[in-house]
């Protein structure tokens, strides 16, 4: 009950503070601009692939920084005090943040890749099965990397005492951890998707568990 309420509340916050618009419009727009202004852009560069690449590299970092900074900021301003003294589980505060941010970036990712797919369809007169398969891998990889980035952002947000340190840790550490998702694709497996999903779920789960334990032990 309290978890769904907190998720809705977080999403309302993103909506009211225009974060959603930035993610859902900004990221696809950035992909289009890069496609248009890339010096060597030609028919051999599929917009779908480009979108997936841009989204996975930008959105993950963006989400992790967003989470870490908002948690550090709210923690230092004692915003959580009034949540913690309510009859809710502390872990729900963390899980709500994760679900809300991950949902927002995942939707942004899907919008950008769908846009890429649509543009490719109209420009090239169709999309081949090879492209669709590549897209499936790209999408899985993007969503997996973002899940790890989000959980790393949460852990760093809880553990870091200052925004500056948190941002540095996210950029140096959080992003590197998310690269674990790429591992199955480098092993030459015929279908790396299930392995990517499994590995990412485990890493995300472990990071979230550490974050929850740290948050539960925190003295406010």
């Amino acid at each position: 009950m309290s978890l769904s309420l907190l998720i809705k509340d977080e999403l309302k916050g993103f909506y009211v503070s225009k974060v959603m618009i930035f993610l859902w419009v900004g990221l696809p727009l950035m992909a289009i601009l890069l496609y248009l202004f890339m010096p060597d852009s030609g028919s051999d560069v599929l917009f779908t692939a480009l979108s997936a690449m841009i989204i996975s590299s930008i959105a993950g970092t963006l989400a992790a920084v967003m989470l870490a900074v908002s948690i550090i900021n709210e923690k230092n301003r004692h915003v959580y005090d009034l949540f913690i003294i309510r009859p809710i589980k502390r872990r729900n505060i963390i899980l709500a943040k994760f679900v809300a941010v991950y949902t927002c970036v995942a939707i942004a990712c899907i919008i950008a890749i769908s846009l890429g797919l649509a543009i490719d369809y109209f420009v090239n007169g169709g999309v081949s099965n090879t492209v669709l398969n590549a897209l499936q891998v790209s999408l899985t990889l993007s969503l997996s990397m973002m899940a790890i980035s989000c959980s790393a952002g949460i852990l760093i947000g809880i553990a870091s005492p200052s925004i500056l340190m948190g941002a540095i840790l996210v950029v140096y550490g959080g992003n590197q951890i998310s690269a674990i998702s790429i591992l199955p694709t480098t092993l030459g497996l015929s279908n790396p998707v299930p392995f990517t999903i499994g590995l990412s779920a485990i890493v995300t789960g472990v990071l979230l568990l550490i974050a929850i334990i740290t948050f539960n032990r925190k003295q406010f």
Partner: protein
Amino acid sequence: MKCLVKVDHVSKKFKGFMALNNVSFQINEGEILGYIGPNGAGKTTTIKILTGLIRDFGGAVSIDGLPIPSKIEEATDMLGYLPQRVSFQDWRTVDHVLNTFGKLSGMAGDSLERRIVEVLELVGLSDVRHKKITELSGGMVQKVGFAQALLHNPKLLVLDEPLSGLDPESRYRVKKIIKDLSKNGTTVFFSSHILSDVQDVATRIGIINLGQIIKIGTVDELNAHFSITNHIDIVLSKGSEHWKNLESITGITNIERPSPNRFLVHTKHKVDIDEIIYSIIQKLTSLDCRIRSIKPVTSSLDEIYLKYMEGGVNQ
């Protein structure tokens, strides 16, 4: 009266600094306990332990028999809390704040809506219900914090510096709300630096310094502990010239004359002030003086507080 809050030999150390050292006290139902002490004395630490925000401490704390922090989730139903520096996410409006915290406290629908209207009216914020938190003054944000603490009709209100940053009118309003709530059975535990406000509101006062409770009691009890020399303030409308005759009364040490018709009588330690007043009235009546007023001057909380602070922790 039933004991609602029990703090039993509580200690808390922060990186080598003893924030609380063997603190014990109880708060009975319907009581208003004011908690005073200098900066860093341990007031906020006590409050944070009581509200479950600090979970790692020595000793035992319970609210209505529920041990804290292990049963804090059950105790939070009856707990309303206003932190020292109340803060909300910038995107929220006053309405968002109250709706969210109301729902998280288990309220919903029409009853929540009615209660939001009620508490906003009570704290005087009805006009700013749909304003963003960032558009409000510090005092207004403090009142929003107070409103969220009252929202779910808690049995126990824990307020950390509830009157700081408020203008005189708001201070009066908040003090009145606290007193009215206490009359209706709500127990209030609050800290403050504004000693006169504590004296106005609290039924009992706890003084803490260097992490230790120095004394808990009513103002009279705290005063009596020191046996502060009592003074009697007299105003005469006729016969002021006979004032020197009062010096012959046993127990009076000396008399000051701040103005022609006003006298400040100083008495010896541990004398019966009522007996002295009776003797003064008899003497003045026999001298055909007209008494406009005569009253014992009681010590202010500031004086008592300073006496306790000067005396250290071993009173």
